[in-house]
């Protein structure tokens, strides 16, 4: 099981150290404004993070080419995560997988329920630029795997930021179609929500941001709780 934390720059080192001390299994660093603004992440910080982190970490945001990805990995990231650029240029997934191996290539999917179906959205980092990608979530989940994605982070937008629990129905549906690791994102508010997503939806990891940033949930305490609920975690 893995936990991931999502952080929008600022106080990166302090947060990263705190999460490592608390026992996070993996960190994800997002620059969610990178794609809508057409710029890439400022990558110097990756080196500083890699220097102190002894757990795996991914970098997401503005990775549009094999060269972008190579720079991020060379700075010390373990994985790269792509979202909007994969929608704009699906071939990028295969190119990255071929060059770095599928295990390095995470595809993030922002999915929203409309008319009883799940739809993929892009440029979700900026509300003004967010738009429907024209793809259905389940089709995109299948396609990115065929193209070589080694992991999928499914961000359920209806749940995001409201702390009412992960979207178990959607995650269960996607799990059926997903033979690579699936990470749940969006909706975590309580420890029970984490237990639910692991036991009911069978995901491989739970990603959360605000509940960890605000220290509403301490990761060590959460993992002890999960172990009591018979969820296998590293303490």
């Amino acid at each position: 099981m893995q936990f991931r934390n999502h952080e929008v720059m600022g106080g990166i080192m302090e947060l990263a150290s705190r999460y490592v001390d608390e026992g996070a299994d993996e960190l994800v660093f997002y620059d969610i404004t990178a794609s809508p603004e057409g710029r890439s992440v400022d990558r110097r910080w990756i080196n500083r993070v890699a220097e102190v982190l002894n757990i795996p970490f991914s970098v997401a945001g503005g990775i549009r080419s094999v060269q972008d990805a190579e720079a991020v990995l060379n700075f010390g990231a373990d994985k790269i995560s792509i979202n909007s650029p994969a929608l704009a240029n699906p071939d990028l997934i295969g190119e990255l997988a071929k060059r770095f191996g599928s295990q390095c290539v995470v595809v993030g999917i922002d999915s929203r329920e409309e008319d009883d179906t799940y739809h993929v959205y892009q440029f979700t980092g900026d509300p003004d630029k967010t738009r429907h990608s024209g793809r259905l979530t389940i089709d995109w989940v299948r396609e990115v795997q065929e193209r070589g994605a080694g992991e999928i982070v499914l961000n359920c937008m209806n749940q995001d930021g409201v702390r009412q629990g992960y979207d178990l129905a959607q995650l269960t549906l996607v799990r059926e179609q997903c033979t690579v690791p699936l990470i749940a994102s969006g909706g975590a508010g309580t420890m029970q929500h984490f237990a639910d997503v692991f036991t009911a939806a069978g995901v491989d990891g739970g990603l959360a941001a605000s509940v960890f940033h605000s220290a509403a949930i301490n990761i060590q305490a959460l993992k002890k709780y999960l172990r009591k609920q018979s969820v296998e975690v590293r303490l």
Partner: protein
Amino acid sequence: MTAKTVAIIDGGGANIASLNFALARLGCSGELTVDPARISAASHVILPGVGDAADCMTRLRDANLVDLIGSLRQPFLGICVGLQLLLDGSEENQARCIGVFPGLARRFAAARGRPVPHMGWNRVHRRRESPLFADIPDGTHFYFVHSYAADVTSDTLASTDYGRSFAAVLERDNFVAAQFHPERSSRQGAQFLENFLRT
């Protein structure tokens, strides 16, 4: 720790930075190289290996390192694909490998509840005692990222399970290989690396 000269064999993959930083945190520095003289002269040699096993072998062959690696007598550590490169071969693109350890790296079959690649923290259980596991409790979690794995053999120092039992650490003479990433396995991973550097 006393001064060590650690050669990291440059297999051409990205992702060497994390290993170098892990060594630096132990007060050691690794030199990334394909120079046979520098590799031979190092006190310790690490073969990280990232990406496709067949590609890695092509690069090692092009650099004339295959026979050299097999003949080294100083402590040698293969990590992840580096473990697979030390086997006879891998199912991955039918790679013929270095052959320090008998056996083939075989691909995992994806199944419900067992996605492939296998990415995550697994408990590692030792099968015999070794200084490599000094101060590391049995059953400690280490971080794995891989789609292929070696079967458990008499060289297997520690094993874990992902649908099938597989070798987490192999050891034969001066050769050690870890399927997990010690550089990304938190405190205990650092301890494993430190134990290796002490051999």
